[in-house]
């Protein structure tokens, strides 16, 4: 019964996601089935979590579940109408190398499911994310306002956004129980979606298919994904956020290359999910919005396109207003950055960026991944000095620099201890986008032209 519920829950997420994806990709001559599936998962989680949260303001229990299900069906129906006869294309490997690499990618996805089943939810996975889902499930799908004010549960960061918890709640509502094992299914699914998107974006940026497939096959070998305290297998939000960021950067570069409004729509919609997934998503949103503004300025974008950038701001402001209304208890890991604080803590800059370098070169977490990314950007700097290369390097290095700078304002007395517990997870959010640069460098990088 639990499994049937789980399948139904996942099915409704995909239904809503397909609807959103088809609406965003409307008027596409040919729809890639794998691409739509991956985007359907991302947008499905976004749509269901938002519907559940917004619907929960007015109702709870079965009526809420019915309303959100109807919303999913409605989105799917609208998307199907917008598809308007565009044929589906299922991409098939063209030669033995592509078959081999595709098999390795499938192996990577299965590995993530297996590793996920072996591990427990990690600290944050349990006490930051699943705890909210459990409480919401026990309260008919709505996180009670008392939770936000509960000082004894402030360790669970009530102010964190709800994409992951509400998606988990949705599965619980369908399964009929809060189950710490089955709920982890969503994280390997984020890996699968990320793998498909990386293969697609990597291939587009490389100008050939095999480099995209090759970097995707190598993705599973990043040690932090399976070993670290923030990888796919322990139910943290960092890798899912990395997958959304990959979609954001990937579709922005695609829109730049093809001058394609559809890709820009996907970029803008995915960007709105960043601050709804995790607080750090705000930093990624800022970088992505800046990159998008460069593209729009270069393409002399229409006002409507500029307006699409603000969807993320609406999500962010809406969430902050809600937290204010429910009097949420805020945790204080960071001080308010101002000029005085910067002068006081300026001595931290050196140690912080030394730690950034140390972490990126830590083989137990990343193997040689960041060195490979550095080599890729070195290659691209010689061979592909285009705006695309600039945007990609900005998309990868600007968040790392901003994340590093944030520790200058850490409220922890031992700011380096703060950094060592959280910074590796922040790098995980950028990691999938880093692979795109590798694919572009390995291929003929026609995609960044």
């Amino acid at each position, binding site marked *: 019964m639990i499994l049937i519920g789980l399948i139904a829950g996942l099915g409704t997420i995909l239904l809503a996601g397909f609807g959103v994806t088809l609406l965003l990709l409307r008027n596409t001559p040919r729809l890639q089935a794998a691409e739509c599936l991956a985007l359907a998962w991302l947008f499905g989680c976004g749509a269901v979590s938002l519907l559940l949260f917004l619907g929960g303001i007015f109702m709870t229990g079965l009526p809420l579940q019915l309303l959100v299900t109807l919303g999913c069906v409605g989105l799917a129906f609208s998307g199907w109408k917008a598809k308007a006869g565009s044929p589906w294309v299922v991409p098939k490997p063209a030669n033995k190398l592509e078959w081999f690499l595709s098999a390795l990618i499938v192996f990577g996805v299965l590995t993530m499911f297996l590793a996920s089943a072996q591990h427990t939810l990690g600290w944050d996975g349990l006490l930051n994310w699943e705890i909210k889902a459990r409480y919401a499930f026990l309260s008919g799908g709505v996180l009670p306002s008392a939770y936000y004010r509960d000082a004894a549960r402030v360790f669970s960061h009530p102010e964190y956004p709800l994409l992951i918890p509400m998606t988990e709640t949705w599965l619980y509502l369908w399964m009929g129980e809060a189950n710490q094992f*089955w709920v982890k299914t969503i994280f390997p699914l984020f890996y699968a979606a990320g793998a498909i998107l990386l293969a697609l974006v990597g291939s587009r940026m490389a100008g050939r298919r095999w480099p995209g497939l090759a970097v995707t096959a190598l993705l599973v070998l990043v040690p932090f994904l399976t070993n670290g305290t923030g990888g796919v297998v322990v139910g943290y939000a960092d890798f899912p956020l990395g997958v959304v960021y990959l979609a954001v950067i990937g579709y922005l570069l695609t829109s730049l290359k093809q001058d394609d409004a559809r890709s820009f729509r996907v970029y803008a919609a995915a960007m709105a999910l960043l601050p709804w997934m995790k607080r750090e998503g705000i930093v990624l949103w800022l970088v992505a919005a800046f990159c998008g503004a460069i593209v729009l300025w270069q393409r002399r974008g229409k006002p409507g396109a500029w307006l699409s950038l603000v969807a993320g701001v609406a999500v962010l402001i809406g969430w902050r207003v809600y937290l204010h209304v429910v009097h949420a208890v805020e945790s204080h890991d960071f001080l308010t950055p101002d000029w005085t604080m910067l002068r006081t803590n300026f001595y931290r800059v050196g140690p912080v960026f030394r730690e950034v370098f140390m972490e990126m070169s830590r083989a137990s977490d990343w193997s040689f991944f960041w060195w490979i990314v550095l080599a890729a950007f070195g290659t691209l700097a010689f061979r592909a000095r285009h705006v695309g290369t600039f945007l990609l390097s900005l998309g990868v290095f600007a968040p790392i620099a901003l994340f590093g700078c944030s520790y200058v304002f850490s409220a922890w007395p031992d700011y380096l201890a703060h950094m060592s517990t959280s910074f590796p997870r922040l790098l995980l959010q950028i990691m999938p986008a880093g692979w795109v640069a590798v694919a572009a460098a390995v291929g003929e990088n026609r995609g960044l032209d």
Partner: protein
Amino acid sequence: MARRPLATTQCAFWAAVCLIYIIGSAPRLVKALRADAFNAPAAFHSTDKYLAATAGMTDGSRRIGDALTLLPDKKRPIGIVKSEEPVSSFIGMVVAYLAWPREIRFISAATGVTSDAGEGLDRRCLSGVVFCDVSTPSWARKRVQLGPSVSLVPSPTIIEPEAR
């Protein structure tokens, strides 16, 4: 023609890079997959494992959850944890996780003086006290031992200060 040696060099470079990366990373993936056995899909899959590791409890989530359910509704339980003891704090957080929808408060007992833990509390407002890796003090008469290092003292068994 000049592009051909360059392309070959580039190809060889990236092949070498990938090989080094695979050799460096593959053993870590194998180690991660061997780290733990496949777990049965239980509702409290993670909290049970944590409570087994930190508090030596079997079926700990259910036992804590059931014990807290039996406490009177109108009063609130409190948890006592050792200050600056990560294991005790962690058990406290798991107790808070399992206690929902009950409001619960935590107080920290300084390490080494846990025999006085909870001294001075207004016990008329308490439904019970959960000791998280803290030895039960003298004022707690009848305790329910939930695990080797987790115990619950329901309110009727707490001796009122004037009765001692």
